[in-house]
C-alpha cells in the first residue's frame, strides 16, 4: 500500500542532498558550502511556509495530511510513514525558520567549513524527520541522525565554558551531551519496542497505535518510561544536566538548533506519544508531571540568576521555559495544550534569537562573561535593540509571542478547578519576576552603563549579520499580535487528543 505526496520527503531530503553535495564538492568558491546550505535551508523555509500558509492544509480535517507511506520492512511492521497534522505543522514551520537562520548565523565560519555545513545540514534533516515521522522506527532513526553529528559539531567548532567556578571544555560538553541523548534514545528504543509488540498486530506506525487499547498496568509503567525518554531530550528536570554545558559549548548555529528545535523534539514527542496514547497513564502521573514542570520553571530561573556566562543564562532560561510547556501539558484542557504548543514555537524562535545574538556578541568581544562587557549599546545600537527585543519576548512582554504562550498556559492552569494547580500557577507567575531579573540584568550589564574602554572600536552588525535577527523578530512580533496563526492550526488536533483523554479521565475540560 503506497500513498505518496512527496512534500515532506523533499523537506527531509533537501538538506541530506545538500550535505552530500557539500562533501562531494571541491574547494571551488563558486559553489561554496555556505551557498549550498543556504539554498537547501531556503528551500525548506519556503516549502514549510507554503505548506503552513497555503490552502492545501486543512486544519479542521481529522487525521494526517501530506502523507507519504511506503512499506519498508513489512515482516517487522515498519513502514516509511510521514504526515502532518495540527500538532507537528507548527514545528515544521519552526524548523524551516531555524534552518535558514542557523545557516545565516554561521556565515563567517572559516575553520573546515565543508564539514561544518555538511554536518549541520544532516542535523536539520534529522530534525525535520523527527517532526513529520509517523512510524516509531523512523522517528528513532531521525532522532539519532540528528544527535550524532552534534557531537562532532560541538567538539570541533564549539567553545569552552567560562563560568568562573567551573570551566568546562567543549569535548567534555560534547561527550556528555551525546551520551545523555543516546541514553534517552535507548529508553525510547525499549519503549517503542514495547508499544509495538503490545499492539494486536506488530506495527510501529503511530496512526495504527492510536487505535490500540493498552492495559492499565502497561500504561502505568510505560508512561513514565516514555516521559523520561522524551524528557531527557526536552530538558525535563532532573534529566537536564546535559543542557547548560551542551548548549553553551556549541557553536552559535548549533546552540540555536539545539535550544530551538531539539528541545522541542522532546516536547513534541511527549505530546504525540504518552499524552495521546496513554489516557490511563496520564491520569496516574499527571500531578507528578505538573510538579516537575514547576520545578523546571523555578529551578531554571534561579540557576540562571546565578550565571555569569551569557550562553549559560540563555541555556538555563530554556530549561525554565520548557517548564511552561510541561505545565501546559499537565493542565489537560485545550487552553493549556494550545499554550504548550504555542510556547514550543515561540520559545524556539526567541531562544534562537538570543543565542544568535549571544554568538554575535562573542564574535565581537571574544568573551562570554557578562561582567566583562559594558555599554555596548553605544557602539552597536542595532545589536542592542534586537537583544532587548529578544529579552522582552523571553520574559513575556505583551505583543510579543512569549506573552501569548505564558498567558495561555497559566490561564489553562487556573481553569483547572484544583487548588493545587492554582498554587502551581502562582509559583509559576511569581517566577516571571525572577526571569525578568536575570534577563534585564544581563541586558543592563552588557549593553548599558559606561562603555568599557576595550570596546570603543567595535562596529555594529553588517548587513548579512542583520538578516537572521530581523527574520526571527518578525516572527516573534507577528505571532505575538496574531496568535491565531498558530492556534488556528493546532486547536482541532489538540481537541481530538483531549477528547480521547476525556473518555478515560473524568474532569478533563474543554
Amino acid at each position, binding site marked *: 500500500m503506497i500513498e505518496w505526496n512527496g512534500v515532506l520527503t523533499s523537506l527531509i531530503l533537501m538538506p541530506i542532498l545538500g550535505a552530500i553535495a557539500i562533501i562531494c564538492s571541491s574547494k571551488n568558491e563558486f559553489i561554496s558550502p555556505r551557498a549550498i546550505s543556504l539554498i537547501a535551508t531556503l528551500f525548506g523555509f519556503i516549502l514549510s511556509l507554503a505548506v503552513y500558509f497555503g490552502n492545501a492544509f486543512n486544519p479542521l480535517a481529522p487525521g494526517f495530511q501530506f502523507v507519504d507511506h511506503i512499506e*519498508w*520492512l513489512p*515482516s*517487522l511492521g515498519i513502514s516509511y510513514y510521514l504526515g502532518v497534522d495540527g500538532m507537528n505543522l507548527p514545528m515544521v514551520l519552526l524548523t524551516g525558520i531555524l534552518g535558514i537562520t542557523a545557516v545565516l548565523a554561521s556565515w563567517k565560519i572559516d575553520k573546515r567549513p565543508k564539514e561544518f555545513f555538511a554536518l549541520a545540514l544532516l542535523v536539520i534533516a534529522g530534525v525535520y524527520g523527527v517532526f513529520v515521522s509517523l512510524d516509531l*522506527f523512523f522517528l*528513532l*532513526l531521525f532522532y*539519532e*541522525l540528528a544527535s*550524532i553529528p552534534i*557531537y*562532532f559539531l560541538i*567538539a*570541533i567548532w564549539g567553545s569552552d565554558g567560562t563560568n568562573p567556578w567551573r570551566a568546562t571544555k567543549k*569535548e567534555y560538553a560534547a*561527550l556528555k551531551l*551525546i*551520551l545523555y541523548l*543516546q*541514553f534517552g*534514545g*535507548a*529508553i525510547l*528504543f*525499549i519503549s517503542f*519496542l*514495547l508499544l*509495538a*509488540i503490545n499492539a494486536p498486530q*506488530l506495527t510501529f506506525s503511530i496512526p495504527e497505535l492510536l487505535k490500540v487499547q493498552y492495559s492499565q498496568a502497561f500504561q502505568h509503567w510505560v508512561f513514565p518510561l516514555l516521559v523520561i525518554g522524551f524528557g531527557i531530550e526536552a530538558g525535563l528536570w532532573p534529566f537536564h544536566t546535559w543542557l547548560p554545558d551542551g548548549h553553551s559549548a556549541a557553536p552559535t548555529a548549533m546552540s540555536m538548533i539545539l535550544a530551538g528545535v531539539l528541545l522541542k523534539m522532546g516536547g513534541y514527542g511527549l505530546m504525540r506519544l504518552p499524552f495521546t496514547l496513554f489516557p490511563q497513564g496520564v491520569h496516574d502521573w499527571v500531578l507528578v508531571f505538573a510538579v516537575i514542570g514547576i520545578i523546571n520553571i523555578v529551578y531554571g530561573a534561579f540557576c540562571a540568576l546565578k550565571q555569569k556566562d551569557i550562553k549559560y543564562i540563555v541555556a538555563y532560561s530554556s530549561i525554565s521555559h520548557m517548564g511552561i510547556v510541561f505545565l501546559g501539558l499537565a493542565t489537560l484542557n485545550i487552553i493549556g495544550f494550545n499554550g504548550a504548543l504555542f510556547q514550543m514555537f515561540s520559545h524556539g524562535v526567541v531562544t534562537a534569537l538570543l543565542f544568535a545574538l549571544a554568538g554575535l556578541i562573542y564574535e565581537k568581544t571574544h568573551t562570554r562573561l557578562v561582567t566583562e562587557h559594558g555599554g555596548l549599546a553605544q557602539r552597536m545600537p542595532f545589536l542592542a535593540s534586537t537583544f532587548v527585543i529578544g529579552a522582552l519576548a523571553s520574559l513575556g512582554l505583551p505583543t510579543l509571542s512569549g506573552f501569548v504562550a505564558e498567558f495561555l498556559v497559566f490561564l489553562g492552569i487556573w481553569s483547572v478547578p484544583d487548588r493545587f494547580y492554582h498554587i502551581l500557577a502562582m509559583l509559576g507567575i511569581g517566577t516571571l519576576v525572577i526571569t525578568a531579573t536575570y534577563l534585564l540584568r544581563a541586558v543592563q550589564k552588557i549593553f548599558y552603563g559606561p562603555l568599557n574602554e576595550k570596546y570603543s572600536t567595535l562596529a555594529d552588525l553588517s548587513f548579512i549579520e542583520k538578516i537572521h535577527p530581523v527574520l526571527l523578530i518578525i516572527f516573534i512580533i507577528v505571532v505575538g499580535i496574531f496568535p491565531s496563526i498558530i492556534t488556528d492550526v493546532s486547536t482541532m488536533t489538540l481537541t481530538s487528543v483531549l477528547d480521547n483523554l476525556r473518555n478515560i479521565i473524568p474532569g478533563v475540560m474543554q
Partner: protein
Amino acid sequence: MSYELLIPEILVGTLALLLIIIDLFINKEKKHFLAHITAFGISAIIFITIFVKINGNYLFDTVGQLSFSFQGQNTVFQGFVFDRMAFVFKEIFLVIALFVTYLSIDFFKDARFGRGEIYPLFLCVVLGMMFMVSATELILLFVAIELTSIPLYIMAAFKHKNNNSGNISGEAGLKYFILGSLASALLLFGMSLIYAYTGSSFISEIAKHLTFDTIESQLTTPPALVVGLLFVLGGLAFKITAAPFHMWAPDVYEGGPAPVIAFLSVAPKGAVIAVLIRLFITYFSPLLSGWTLIFSILAVISMFAGNLLALHQENVKRMLAYSGIAQVGYVLAGLASAKPGNMTGVEGAIFYLIAYTVTNLAAFGVIIYLSSTIGKGEFVNDYKGLAKRSPWLALVMLVSFLSLAGLPPLAGFIGKFYLFLGAVKSGLVWLAAIGVVNSVISLFYYLRIAKAMYLEEVPADASATLPSLKPASLVLWITLFAIITLGVYPAPLASLSSEIFKMLIPL
C-alpha cells in the same frame, strides 16, 4: 548418497592442496602471487557453486523448494545436511576469505613473512567451517571444529619476527593453541558423555533422548546427558569468545597478524553460531527453555564484560577483541529469545552476524591498510589526525564503528533492532534493556577513536598522506557500501534471514 552436495567442500580442499603445491615452485620474494591465485580460485568457487548447473539443477535449487532435496536427497549421509542455512553460510565464508585475501595482499608482502602457507591455511579453515555448518553428527562436528581451529593456531603465530618487541605473535599462537586444545578436550569429553548415554553420535538420534515433562515441568532426560550437552556448549562458547570463556581473545587479537585476526573475528563466530542454531535451537528444542536461559546468562555476561573492559583499551586490536565479545553477547541475546512461535530473535541473530561481518572486516581493513603502508595502526595514538591525512580511511573507520555501536542508518542499527525486538517479543524486556544500555556504553570507546581521528592534530612525526593500495581500497569500498546499504535497505537480507530460518526445521 549424493556426493554432488559436497562440491563446495571438494573444490575448497582441492584449491588448498593446489596452493600448497604451487607454493613449492614460487620464489621467496614472489609469494604474494599466491594471494592472487587464491583470490582467483575462491572467486571461481563462488561462481561455480552459485551459477553452474549440475545435472540440470543449480546447487541452491535444492533449497529453493519446501521439500529441499537434490535429486531426492539432501544429505550425503545422515550426518551431513545441506539446507539453505548451510548454503548461505558457506558462501559467506568464501566471501570473507576472498575479502581478507585481497585486504592482505600488501600486508604479507613483507619479507618477515616470506612463506606462502598462509593462503592454503586460510582455505583449510574455510573447509572446516563449511563442514561445521552442515554437520549433524558429533564426530564430523568435532573434526570440522579441529580443522577450523588448528590452522588458526598456526596462523596466529605467523608473524614470528616482530619489530623489537619480542615474539608477541608466537605467544598469541601458543596461548590460543593451549586454551583452544583445552576447549576441544572439553568438547570431546561432552561428546563422549553424550555417546555413552545415547549410544549414537547422530544429532537426530540424540534429540530423541531429550525429554521434558511439560506437565510436571521436570527434566526427564538422564542428567549426565545434559551435562554432556553443557560441556559441548561450553566448548563452542569458547570458540565464539562468549564470556566467561573469552579470556584468550584479547591476547590473541593483540598478538596475531591483522589479516588473520580479521578473519578470526568474523568467520568462526558465524560458523559456531550456525552450529548453535542448528543443534540447540532446532534439534534439541525439547529443552529450549533451558538453553535460552543459558544463552541469556552468557549474553549478559558477554555484553558487560566486553563493553566495560573495552573502555580502557589503548590498543585498537584489543579493543576490537572486547567489542567482539560484546557483539557476540547481542547475538546470544537474540538466540536467547527463541521460543516456539517467536523466532524473530534468531532471524535477527543471522542478520546481525552478516552485518557484524562486513562491519568488522571494514574496521580491520583500515587497520591492515595502515599497517601495510606505514607499519603502524595498532594503537589509538596512531589514528590521531587521520581525518586530515586520509579522510577516506577515517570515514570507513567511523562508519564501521558507528555501525558497531548500533547507530542508524547503518547495518548495525537494523541488526540490533531486530535482535531486541525478538527479545521483547519473548518477554525478555530486561535483556533488551541491558542490550540497549550496553550499546550506549560502547559508543564511548568507539567515539574515542573517532575523536582521535577527527579532532586531534596530526602528530609531527606522522606522514602527511598515505600511499594508496588498490586491492585493499576496493574491499573497503565494498564493505562501506554494504554497511550503508544494509542499513538503508535491509528488506532483502531480512527476508533472506526469515527464509533461512523457515527451512531449518528438522525433518
